[in-house]
């Protein structure tokens, strides 16, 4: 796994978290821009999964396979969950949900990377 895709995913998620916060402060419900943002983040996460499969096909393997796939499966679910909950709550609180979930994603991506690399490196 190269670090660029992870970095991109983290940057996208943090940008969307900030965008959700802007909506929250302005007392706005999450709108189309947030849903598109979540879709973009989801695509980046799926690309991470594809990159992992490509790397495995190339002979690499995660340091902790079970944990790695567990994290990946969890992260993949987050943007859709955020989208569903945000749509259920068309108030500023829906925008907070987008922000909260988008703050969790970078943490999980970092953990994902750690479970790929050999422990201690």
């Amino acid at each position, binding site marked *: 796994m190269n670090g660029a895709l992870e970095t991109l995913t983290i940057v996208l998620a943090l940008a969307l978290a900030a965008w959700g916060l802007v909506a929250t402060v302005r007392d706005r*419900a999450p709108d189309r821009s947030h849903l598109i943002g979540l879709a973009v983040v989801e695509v980046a996460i799926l690309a991470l999964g594809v990159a992992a499969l490509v790397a495995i096909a190339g002979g690499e393997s995660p340091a902790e396979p079970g944990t790695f796939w567990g*994290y990946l499966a969890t992260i993949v679910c*987050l943007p859709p969950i955020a989208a569903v*909950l945000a749509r259920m709550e068309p108030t500023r*609180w829906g925008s907070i949900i987008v922000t909260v979930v988008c703050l969790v994603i970078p943490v999980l991506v970092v953990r994902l990377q750690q479970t790929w690399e050999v422990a201690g490196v």
Partner: protein
Amino acid sequence: MSEPRTDTRVSRMLNGGPGRVLIAVYLLFAIAATARAGLQIATRFGEAPLAYLLSAFAAVVYIIATYGLARAGELGRRIALVCCTIELVGVLVVGTASLLVPSAFPDDTVWSGFGEGYGYIPLLLPVLGLLWLWRTRSARA
């Protein structure tokens, strides 16, 4: 840009407004704790059975709490109240025990060190849950 129509009044419903944010965070913890416990029990249960069983217990409590908060109503409130109370007691007892008797916890649980591995959110979450139940108590939500 943003839709101008937005409900600014604080919802009195258990599962609306801030309550929905609470549900989202509970859902995240339900998923995280379940994934963690499932993996630990499936791959290395013998290393730290107590810690992993506690992880599994915490996961179940988060799942039921999420359900209670999302269901709302009289029953949902009661379910959420019981779960938040169990969580608060659990995180305090396990947190204290993990500091006093670290040998009993060779591997961390969600509640070890008062949830330090999860930014102390496991300690904060039941408190927020109970506060939210209290604030919406009059509503037949």
